[in-house]
């Protein structure tokens, strides 16, 4: 789904350059913390980002708490998804058969490369040189745009936020509001450089209108259209796309050729299940009862063609992972990002991945374990994400589990593991522990030092050290209670 077009908050004053995302160094893990520090160092961006997303979270609370059966809906949605995933082969075949019966061409892609090849081939067969598309995290995941552009095919994003990101040559930072990390001034700058708007005019309506003006002819002339999919219904062979700008309908209906990229986890068994998810989706994402458009695609229109590409790209492997398979329940509402205190203060691009925030942390390592090995540590494990998730994914428990997997497969830095080994030895020996805590000189007793054994500097960089009292509880007990101690 996509967010409202005019959700840019006003923060005036002199220009603050937009902090960019994580640095990618081949072979090295993404350092989310480093990128987050740069985001925090840009106070306007930080405040804008935190405020906008926290507002979405509050809107979500208000509307969700107005629905008496909210928690039951979440449970139901979770069960429907778990059932579907447990019988995914069955429902995929059902979907394929019914879609074909509706006159839809169905393709299967094992991975991103195959998806891109298939899309290119369909376009090629129709002599299509331009493609308009609505937002799709799956095509981001497949890096489809640069692939097609390599063949000289022009790709035009029609979702406003996604278009901003395309023109800025930057990934979306959020699954619902892709440019939420940008200030209006950033957008004005991007548009002035790319579509020739007045660089000093950052009025949202002006910017949105200019963008529409320049994109409209491209839309009208496009040879092919592409959408993603929010829900694919097995019993009917139809699929549903939810947007707030109606741009999926443009992409699907203006050109004669419609291609939809669908991750295999998007299946739900029956049309009657759709209502459960539609009630949850926009309420969780933006705090609105429903997206402006909930478009059902059933069959190609007269004289047109409709293609569906069902994409695996690691999903069936994920389905086989005991601790992580339920991450496939995700309906990409973004609620876990909106609520995440770390995400709100670091920006989606700091994760250096297609998926960011809490859901990103648990999905990304399935794509590249080494590259995303540090992400599970970019969380305070506070659990708010799991509580807002409309399909009840135990997100923070999966983040916790990923830490263990990273340690077991030696994907965490040797220094960190060595520290923990030392801490483990210290804390399992009463004598060593006592020596560390009750050192004769109280000034030497420093909290992070004995909890994590090292890294004293990172504590004091941003906080004052606690002052150690002149005795420990242990000393006190010894002095005051030991004689009367009751032996167990």
């Amino acid at each position, binding site marked *: 789904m996509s967010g409202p077009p005019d959700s840019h908050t006003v923060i005036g004053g002199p220009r603050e350059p937009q902090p960019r995302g994580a640095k990618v160094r081949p072979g090295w893990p993404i350092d*989310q*913390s480093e990128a*987050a*520090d740069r985001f*925090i160092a840009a106070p306007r961006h930080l405040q804008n980002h935190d405020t906008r997303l926290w507002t979405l979270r509050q809107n979500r609370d208000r509307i969700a708490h107005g629905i*008496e059966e*909210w*928690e039951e809906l979440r449970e139901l949605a979770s069960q429907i998804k778990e059932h579907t995933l447990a019988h995914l082969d069955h429902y995929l075949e059902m979907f394929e058969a019914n879609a074909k019966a509706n006159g839809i061409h169905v393709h299967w892609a094992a991975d991103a490369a195959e998806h891109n090849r298939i899309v290119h081939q369909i376009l090629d067969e129709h002599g299509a040189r331009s493609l308009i598309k609505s937002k799709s995290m799956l095509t981001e995941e497949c890096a489809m745009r640069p692939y097609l552009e390599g063949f000289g095919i022009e790709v035009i994003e029609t979702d406003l936020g996604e278009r901003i990101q395309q023109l800025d040559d930057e990934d979306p930072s959020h699954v619902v509001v892709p440019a939420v990390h940008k200030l209006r001034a950033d957008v004005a700058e991007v548009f002035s450089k790319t579509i020739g708007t007045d660089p000093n005019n950052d009025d949202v309506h002006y910017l949105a209108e200019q963008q529409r003006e320049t994109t409209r002819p491209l839309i009208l002339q496009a040879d092919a259209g592409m959408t993603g999919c929010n829900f694919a219904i097995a019993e009917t062979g139809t699929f549903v796309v939810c947007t707030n700008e109606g741009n999926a309908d443009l992409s699907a209906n203006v050109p004669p050729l419609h291609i939809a990229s669908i991750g295999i986890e998007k299946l739900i068994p029956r049309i009657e299940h759709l209502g459960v998810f539609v009630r949850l989706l926009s309420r969780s994402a933006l705090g609105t009862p429903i997206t402006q458009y909930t478009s059902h695609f059933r069959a190609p229109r007269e004289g047109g063609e409709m293609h569906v590409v069902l994409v695996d790209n690691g999903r069936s492997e994920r389905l086989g992972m005991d601790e992580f398979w339920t991450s496939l329940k995700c309906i990409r509402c973004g609620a876990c990002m909106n609520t995440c*205190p*770390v995400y709100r*203060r670091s920006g989606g691009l700091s994760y250096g991945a297609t998926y960011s925030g809490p859901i990103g942390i648990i999905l990304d390592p399935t794509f590249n374990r080494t590259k995303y090995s540090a992400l*599970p*540590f*970019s*969380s*305070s*494990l*506070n*659990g*708010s994400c799991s*509580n*807002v998730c409309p399909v009840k994914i135990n997100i923070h428990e999966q983040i916790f589990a990923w*830490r*263990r*997997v990273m*340690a077991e497969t030696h994907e*965490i830095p040797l220094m*960190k593991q060595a520290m*923990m*080994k030392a*801490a*483990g030895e210290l*804390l*399992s020996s*009463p004598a060593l*522990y006592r020596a560390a*805590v009750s050192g004769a000189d109280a000034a030497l*007793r420093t*909290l*992070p030092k*004995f*909890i*994590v054994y090292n890294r004293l500097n*990172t*504590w004091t*960089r*941003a*906080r*004052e050290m*606690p002052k150690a*009292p002149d005795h*420990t*509880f*242990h*000393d*006190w*007990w010894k002095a005051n209670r030991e004689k009367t*101690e*009751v032996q*167990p």
Partner: protein
Amino acid sequence: MRVGLFVPCYIDAFEPEVGISTLELLERFGCEVDYPFDQTCCGQPMTNTGCHAEAAATEALFVKNFAPYDYIVAPSGSCVHQVREHLTAVDQTEEVRAVRARTFELTEFLHDVLKVDAFPWAEFPHKVGIHYNCNSLRGIGLAQASEPNKPFYSKPLELLKKVRGIEFVQPSRWDECCGFGGTFCVFEPGVSAKMGYDKVSDHAKAGADYIVSADSSCLMHQKGCAERIGLPLRFIHIARILNGARQ
């Protein structure tokens, strides 16, 4: 009722008063309290970092120390959460499972097990904002977090309401994480500190003199943050208020 008192490492080293208050409070309600002398830690620093194997010996020591008691009580929800939910690096023998099930956080022990209805000695004439450690809140249910559509309750608040003279203030993001997060605060220091600054500023804006919590770890982090940005807030563990501390 024989209670084994678990004093987490940072309370032992930095807030012995919290340990003493917990002990005295339990004794006031007739518990026979013992402090197993060889105790160290619950293993959280290691498991929190993914290093479960490295936590096994510490977990085994915890179980050995606390197996003899009817209840194990700690003035720290975060450590109790670790014991209940994540003490899994050792074999799950009957003894281990029993220790895990019998471990309580102080306020839930007072509220659910002892069902305390008065603290006649307690008086705290100040404005306080309550801080909930996230493991205490969403992990062991000390209170109802704001996200689910479920009726609010708070065990610490219920207990504090019985204290004379106390006044409560409500920060706007009352259950947002303060950024301590165990080893998170040293591995992601920038975001952690920013979360801490925001948390203490929110309480200050609401008019709090004190931030009170059932977890010293968060308080220690917040205190460091408040001092760094120059906010005149004070911090106190709930055990001290319930045991009669006036400031």
